[in-house]
């Protein structure tokens, strides 16, 4: 095992003495820290739940069908993301680029749904960041998640650009895998938000 790792270390500067890819370990460490970030925001939302003294309640404003559709979009985008990785590992770069583009498109659709949701809350329900404890904790939590999704969409589009420009091939699969880890992470955060914030009464 040690010899195997040492051999890799000689040939690939991204492989350390553990035999593991530094970039991938770095991403897992980042995702672990991001878990704590979102854990704090979810905990705050739950702590404030039902304690607003003004403004509309969650039941008054949530559009469950729209949010369910958004949840389905993110889940579907996780599938297209892994299909992109599988295609690249199989050296089908054009197919991988198409799956990456599909993933980015669904991510963008999710963000647009969220923008529409926020717009509705502000203009139809008079719920803003400063209206109530519910407003502040909701917008901060879901807003940071939306920012993560937006960052992921930009990342995916950069990968599509690299693929179209002929600068992404089978040897770069770790780059796509790391982007995928990030993308799946925003999906699992939404799984938690969807249940805890939207579905639990």
């Amino acid at each position, binding site marked *: 095992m040690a010899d195997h790792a040492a051999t890799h270390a000689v040939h690939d500067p991204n492989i350390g003495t*553990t*035999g*593991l*890819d530094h970039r*991938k*370990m770095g991403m*897992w*460490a980042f*995702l*672990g*820290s991001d*878990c*704590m970030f*979102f*854990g*704090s925001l*979810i*905990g*705050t939302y*739950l*702590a*404030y*739940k*039902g*304690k607003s003294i003004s403004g509309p309640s969650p039941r008054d404003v949530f559009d*469950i069908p729209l949010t*369910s559709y958004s*949840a*389905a979009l993110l*889940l*579907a985008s*996780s*599938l297209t*993301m*892994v*299909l992109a*990785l*599988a*295609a690249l*590992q*199989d050296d089908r770069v054009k*197919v991988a680029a*198409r*799956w990456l583009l599909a993933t980015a498109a669904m991510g963008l659709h999710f963000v647009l749904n969220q923008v529409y949701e926020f717009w509705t809350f502000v203009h139809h329900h008079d719920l803003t960041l400063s209206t109530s404890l519910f407003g502040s904790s909701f917008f901060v939590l879901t807003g940071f998640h939306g920012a993560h999704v937006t960052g992921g969409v930009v990342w995916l589009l950069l990968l599509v650009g690299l693929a179209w420009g002929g600068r992404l091939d089978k040897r770069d699969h770790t780059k796509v*895998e790391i982007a*995928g*880890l990030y993308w*799946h*992470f925003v*999906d*699992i955060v939404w*799984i*938690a938000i*969807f*249940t*805890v914030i939207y*579905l*639990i*009464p």
Partner: protein
Amino acid sequence: MVDPDGTAAATQGEGGGHVTVKTYVNVAIVLAIITALEVATLYIPGIPSSLLVGILLVMSALKFYLVVGFFMHLKYDHQIMRALFVGPLMIAIAIILAVMALFSAFLLLPRSH
């Protein structure tokens, strides 16, 4: 574009295990079914609040596990990767429970007054 046999493309985790395209598609189908069940559970008339909360949390945890285990390959990855993610995840859950306890918000279940 999907390989029906799942034999052409497979993703290898650092731990050496394989995930095939067929597995990805199957996991996605299960995720879609669970999501539909989650939403449908909301519309069951007369379901006790604590039961509803319990069912939703279990289904959510299952979805979380499926995405992390199969799509993120953590089930097949090296134990260092698992430790890097699962450790902070446990801390995050502890943070949520601690903040809830701090504010007396045992919110997922009916609270006593």
